């Protein structure tokens, strides 16, 4: 907590408001607003984490249209039961039409009640290839419709270019398309990492070889980050040896992510795989339920670990596409179109289902198979970035060429 912005954030943390970048701390003081009455850190201190569910998760079982008889007809073995207080395996009521998958009862449902979570059904991209890699690629590049596509540029890299001073980090082995581009982005994988590969003496010797070299900063940052993560792994091991329950799977990764983003990085990206449920998807329990449980626990742990910074944090969960509305012949679902995006954060306008919607029946299906896309992901994220960082229309064009941002009032 050495950064003074953090203590300012504490003072005004009760207020559900994000400041635009133009309202710097000094301006606020000059205009006579007391730091105690507003959320007063510069907007570049806001945290944004994008979670990409690779494989196309089955959004229709995350957000259950429990009033739709068509839903229950279409999914004879994998549907989630209507909300029922006596049945813990039933959907959790979110509003008059939508229920939440019961695997998220202890993790995401409480966030929704605290208005720290919202969902956007019928959201996604105009890409119709239904191919994992083509759709992931087009989402990450964010240039659909742009005349000359730059293959080596992703929208989160362009976002770092328009928010000055924001430190980006990718929690992945290699740099994903979304972070490719002109800005140098740190990357470190937090899953399956071991103890530090080098001790302090060795690290110093390695860094020493690069003294005065153009790669010096990159090398130091990489070594520091790797050593830091390695030390955390050691501490976690020691804690486990003392009998503490050690988190598993995505929760472990998410806690490490939160500690890095709380202290040093403002823009983060992580991907989570395993959502391509063509076969034996399961319903209230089974493959998808297990994945959602793992994801939900991780996101909830992330929120907790961010501490007071959670009020300045927005997490968006996306996937390349939704899946076929109807169950297939192997008790799973195939590649579809419209998805459901999740937005989480300590100061968002949550506890709602947001965006354009339509009824859930056969007539409203896209090509008689999938959820349609009524909310373009670039308009959604563009609108969010505008609110979080006070970006101009030109800056939005840099991030998402050819897109008009739409303000859904997410934060």
């Amino acid at each position, binding site marked *: 907590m050495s950064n003074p912005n953090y203590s300012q954030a504490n003072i005004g943390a009760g207020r559900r408001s994000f400041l635009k970048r133009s309202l710097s701390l000094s301006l606020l003081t000059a205009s006579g607003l007391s730091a105690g009455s507003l959320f007063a850190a510069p907007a570049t201190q806001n945290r944004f984490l994008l979670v990409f569910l690779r494989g196309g998760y089955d959004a229709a079982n995350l957000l259950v249209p429990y009033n739709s008889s068509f839903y229950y007809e279409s999914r004879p073995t994998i549907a989630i039961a209507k909300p029922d207080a006596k049945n813990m395996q039933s959907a959790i009521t979110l509003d008059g039409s939508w229920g939440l998958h019961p695997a998220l009862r202890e993790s995401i449902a409480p966030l929704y009640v605290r208005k720290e979570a919202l969902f956007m059904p019928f959201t996604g991209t105009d890409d119709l290839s239904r191919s994992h*890699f083509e759709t992931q690629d087009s989402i990450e590049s964010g240039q659909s419709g742009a005349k000359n596509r730059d293959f080596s540029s992703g929208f989160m890299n362009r976002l770092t270019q328009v928010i000055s001073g924001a430190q980006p980090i990718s929690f992945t082995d290699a740099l994903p398309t979304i972070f490719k581009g002109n800005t140098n982005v740190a*990357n470190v994988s937090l899953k399956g990492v071991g103890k530090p590969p080098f001790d302090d003496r060795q690290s110093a010797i390695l860094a020493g070889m690069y003294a005065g070299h153009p*790669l010096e900063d990159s090398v130091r940052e990489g070594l520091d980050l790797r050593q830091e993560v390695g030390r955390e792994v050691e501490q976690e091991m020691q804690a486990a040896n003392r009998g503490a329950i050690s988190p598993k799977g995505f929760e472990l990764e998410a806690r490490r992510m939160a500690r890095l983003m709380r202290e040093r990085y403002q823009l983060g990206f992580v991907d989570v795989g395993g959502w391509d449920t063509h076969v034996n998807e399961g319903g209230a329990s089974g493959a998808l339920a297990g994945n959602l449980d793992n994801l939900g626990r991780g996101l909830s742990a992330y929120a907790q670990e961010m501490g007071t910074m959670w009020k300045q944090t927005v997490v968006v969960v996306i996937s390349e596409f939704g899946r076929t509305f109807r169950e297939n012949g192997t008790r799973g679902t195939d590649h579809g179109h419209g998805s459901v995006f999740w937005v989480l954060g300590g100061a968002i306008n949550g506890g709602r289902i947001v965006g354009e919607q339509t009824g859930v029946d056969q007539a409203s299906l896209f090509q008689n198979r999938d959820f349609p896309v009524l909310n373009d992901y670039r308009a959604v994220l563009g609108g969010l970035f505008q609110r979080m960082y006070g970006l101009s229309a030109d800056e939005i064009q840099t991030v998402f060429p050819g897109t008009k941002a739409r303000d859904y009032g997410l934060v």
Partner: protein
Amino acid sequence: MRWLNRITYGIDGATVAEYQTLGRKGFLEKQLRGSEDGMPAAVSATLAHLDMINLPLSQSLQDIDLANKHINTLPTEDDKQQARKQLNDQAGIAVYETNKRHLLRALYSPAQLKEQMVWFWDNHFSVFQGKANLRWSVADYEEHAIRPHALGNFRDLLMATLKHPAMLMYLDNAQSAGGKINENYARELLELHTLGVNGGYSQQDVQELARILTGVGVDTQPTSPKLKPEWQALYLRDGAFEFNPARHDFGDKQFLGQSITGQGWGEVEQAIDLIVKQPATAHFISNKLALYFVSDDPPPALVDRMAKAFQHSNGDISAVLRTMFSSKEFTASLGSKFKDPMHYVVSAMRLAYNGKTVTNLKPVNNWLNSLGEPLYGRLTPDGYGMRQRDWASSGQMSKRFEIARAIGGGSAGLFDSDDGSPPVAFGFPMLSNRLFYETVDNVMSVPVKLALDKAASQAEWNAYLLASPDFMYR
């Protein structure tokens, strides 16, 4: 030594010895011919026994077709899943064998320039093994479309990729037919393979080329389709490649300012002639070669001379390379090109293990994966980037240090069998050897020498050498 480090994947003892025998000129000419004289017998023997990928492609594609049909007739879901898993595992083996062949050649073939050019063209005409049946076809694509032309004629190379099922499936031309056109391949052929994005073609040209390419596709059946008599003479077949007149748009076309009369396959030949003769193609290819071999910002004067050599020789790739390698710009650039992950990993292994044949390539695949440059793994058709900024992120640098430690420490399992039998003991390599003192030592920078002096063991010494800034450049 810097010259040798650039012409090859990086020095090893055999390369240095050959260079000393042939001299610079003789060595370069042998490299430009792509002569594989002197391939280690152990490597040749391994390559001859990659059973999955040594089958003809048309045969494997037919087999997969049959297997899939068979799976659909299986009585229970469990049987189907098990059979699918088996097929999937076999595809995994095919991919491993393809990787293994590529890496063994890169590591040990005396035709070091040719091996780099195979990688270069694999990357230029990039296909992604994860799409459709490509896990089965990348081996054949590399072996029969890319490799024979890697140092040969550009038109032949382009045509070989155009006729290969891997490319036709990857960029969807196999699905393109008259009235149901898919422009994907036509666009990338112009933008990424030949003219370049600002190469002076229009959206109209893309559409017209897509029409010309209708019917250029893949047939995985053993027998050709039944066609009307007047189309039978126009049908072409070569392995799994076909030109099917029934799917072709026979209207006349306007392409790159020329009229092309609807006639079938002849249109494709005409269009490719036109494309290859464009100065923009000569320039685009020359620039990319210079980007790979000379500099992140290729000197325009050099690229112009290379483009002239391209045009004068009708697209002779070795003539363009000769112009580049004998230029003063090339000499001036030695030691300043940041290694991409493939160059980094291969050069480190060549120096460290100096000809001792690796048996288990899985660690190498993992390293390339974790550095973000797996073989046949580029999702998008543009291929991997070739500049320092594409590969020098903080995470990638520290990953290189870990790989340097693994290679230098001898603990990576490279000399284990790759069939799951128990590991064999292998100590760390002695990198501070005669090869090092005769070649590398005298070009090492002072901070690196200081670091090496602080090493507490030979394994640590190896790691510092391979992690040094000097070793990151070629």
